[in-house]
Every structure is written in C-alpha cells, then in structure tokens.
C-alpha cells in the first residue's frame, strides 16, 4: 500500500504536531516548521476525505496463479 498516502499516518502526524505546537517550549523556527508540516498533513487528509469516486474491483486468479483485477459494477 505504498502507492497512496496513508490517512492514518497523516492524522497521527498532525495530532503530534498540534500537541507539540501547543506546548510551551517551542521556539519560533520550530513552530514555523511544525506548522508547515501540519499544513501538508492537512492537505493529505483533506484530499483523501474529498475523494468521491469509490473503486470496486473484482479479483481473479489466472491459470498461472497471477492475480488480475477488473472493475465491478455494484
């Protein structure tokens, strides 16, 4: 599953960024870097949340054992 960004990773990263940013001992450079990273994670999360078209595929095994998938209308 390396081909798509992980929503879970983005959310977990975002949560840890916010926690650190809300802490009292962050210097300004660090705060800025955290913020920028946070915005990137937000973009990943929002992009996945706004994905509208769901993919449903049917998995078949070929005679030689390789797997193929085809779109399935449900």
């Amino acid at each position, binding site marked *: *599953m390396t081909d*798509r960004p*992980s*929503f*879970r990773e983005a*959310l977990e990263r*975002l*949560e840890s*960024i*916010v926690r650190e*940013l*809300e802490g009292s001992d*962050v210097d*300004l450079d660090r*705060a*800025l870097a*955290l*913020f*920028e990273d*946070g*915005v990137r994670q*937000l973009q990943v*999360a*929002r992009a*996945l*949340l706004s*994905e*509208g*078209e*769901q*993919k*449903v*595929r*049917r*998995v*078949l*095994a070929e005679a030689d054992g390789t*797997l193929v*998938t085809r779109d*399935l209308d*449900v």
Partner: protein
Amino acid sequence: MGGLSLFDGIAPTDGAWSVAQVTQRARQLVEAGFDRLWVRGEVTGLKAYQSGHWYFSLRDRQAQVRCVMWRMDTQRLREPPEDGTEVFAEARPTVWEERGEFRLTVKQLIPTSADGMWQARLERAREALARDGLLDPSRKRPIPPYPRRLAIVTSPDGAALRDIVSVVRRRWPAVELLVVPARVQGETAEAELCAALALAGRLDVDAVIVGRGGGSREDLWAFNSERVARAVAAAKVPTISAVGHETDVSLTDLVADFRAATPSAAAEAAVPDRGAVLGLVNGLARRLAGGLTGRVDLATQRLDRTADRLASGAGGRLERGRSRLDALGAGLNALSPLRVLERGFAVARDERGQVLRHVGAFTPGARFRLTVLDGDVPARVEGGP
C-alpha cells in the same frame, strides 16, 4: 475347541468353569468379533451420573441393548439426549464381566435428525478450534481505523456485497474494495470460500470481510465449516465476519477478529464515518492555527520589547523579524482557507492559480488575483509598465 485356542490362557479347572471365566471369555469373544460400529436406535432410560458416565439403552422395535458412555466421551457433548431421541451411536460391543451383561461402549452419540446432526458436527468443530487456541479472545486484533483497501470474500451477485458497497460509499469512499468471489452456499461453497480466503491473503489489503446475507440454517452452513473457520483464522490481516443472522453465531464469527451481525454492520465496522472524521480534522486544523498564532503573538511581544530597547540600532533585525511574520501569515492562508479569510486575510494567486508567498513573487506590473471571503478580486502589482 480348536477355534478358541486364542484363549488358551483361560481354561476350566476341575472340569468346571468359574462364572468369572465364562464372562471373561465371552467378553474376549465379543470384542474380537466386532469392529467399532455405528448403531442406530432410540435412547431410553438414560442416567447421567455425577461421575460423568452415562448409562442408557438403545432400542428399536425388535430389541434393546444396554450402553455405557464414559466421562471422557460424554464431556464432548453439551448435555445428554432426551429419552426417545433417535441417535447414531459409534460403539464397541463388549461384555460387562461382573454382570455377565452384553453392552455397547459408546464413543460418540449423534442425533439422527438433521438439526441434531449438524449441531453435533458444529460442536466437534468448535472444540477442535478451541483446542488449537483459535477461539482465544486474546487473538483478536483491532480493525485498522482508516483502511485504504479492503478485501471482501462473498458472492459477487449477493445482497451482502451491495449492502457493503453502499454503506462504504456513504461513509468512506476513499477506500478501495477488492471483491474476491466465492459461492456462499451449496456443495462447493466450503472449497470456494477457502480458496477465496487464500487468494485474499495474497492481496495488499488492510482487512478482510467475509460473509453473506441472511438465509436458512442450511444456507449458512459453509460458515460453520471447520475448514473455512481455519482459513479465516489464518488470515494475515484482521478479519470481519458478516453472516446475516442475528441469533445464531457461526464458526467464522467465533474465529474472526470482529463479528458483525449483518454485512452492513460489517461495513460500518470496517470504515470510519467521513463526517465524523472531517470534524476531527477541522478541529486539528483550528488547533494548528491557534498553536501557531499563540507562538507568533509571543514572538511579536518579544520583538516589540527588542525594538523598544534597541531603538534605531536594531532596524535590520527587526526587519528580518517582520518578514518572518509575513511568511507566517502566508502559511496561515494555506490552511483551511475560508476560516482564515473570515479573519480578514486574503490569498494572492498568480494567473495559474499558484499562491504568491513571497515579495519576490510579485513582479512589478504583474496581474494576480486576491481571494477574500466572498470571492476574487483582480489586482496588479504597482510600478510596472
């Protein structure tokens, strides 16, 4: 007596046999003369003793025979059959020497009614799974909260698949569904479900849903197969069992990491609700902005103090501080645009829609667009041609 030379060890003394000798030889003859066999009959006069042993008779219209079933075998049955139950008994004929009584030592007792037979098979399969630790609650794995891909082992034409797809589409369309087809009833269902589960094991998925819609007990039988249950238990990723019934529990329900009463419920367990997650993300976005704003306010106060102290000599440093603040402002604009725009910020974009973040991006004379809360305003950088 040549034919009995096998039993030469037991011989009458003084020309007469003792009773014990007769019954002992009878037992040896009977045990040597029968293999283990299945006897069909009606249970009658059953007595279950504290010791765990059961004593009863099996009878049909012509005859009856005394039976004993020892504790090690009765333990596998939940409760003794009621009087009058017709059963198949797997038994070994013998003679109880002390009483000189012919009887059957029963190893297994299966009611002949279809229901009872299934129940007995189910019970045996359940025990086998339990022995191997497959029903241990500590084996249960959590279902991943934000799956990217799910495998669904079911019939591609069934109502179960349609239910799952429609629930997932409504809640979390970002997930990709991979349907691994298998017949879910009939003679081939067991083998097809096992093959489909093995195939699902080769896919890069976050979880597997296996199930079907509701049906009669016969229809659901494949989900009570020990082989199918073992295939579910062997899955590398968390499994959700979704067999459409509210009351009975199937074997796949018992071994799966999560048991859903219906395919729709399985889909709800497999994916989060987009609306709820959006609320969570927006909350984090607000805290992110708030966290930075707080930090910037602090920096501004410090900057002001520095400015007071250094008066004219610190101009350069103050200027660097200001431009950093401007950069922070631009960063804020990228975050949840509407919310930021509400506070009176504007986003500047060039004609290709790229956000203009730095002074250097504004070429004198260039056209750009300013997005404010309720729309876009065309704008131009002063000083151009």
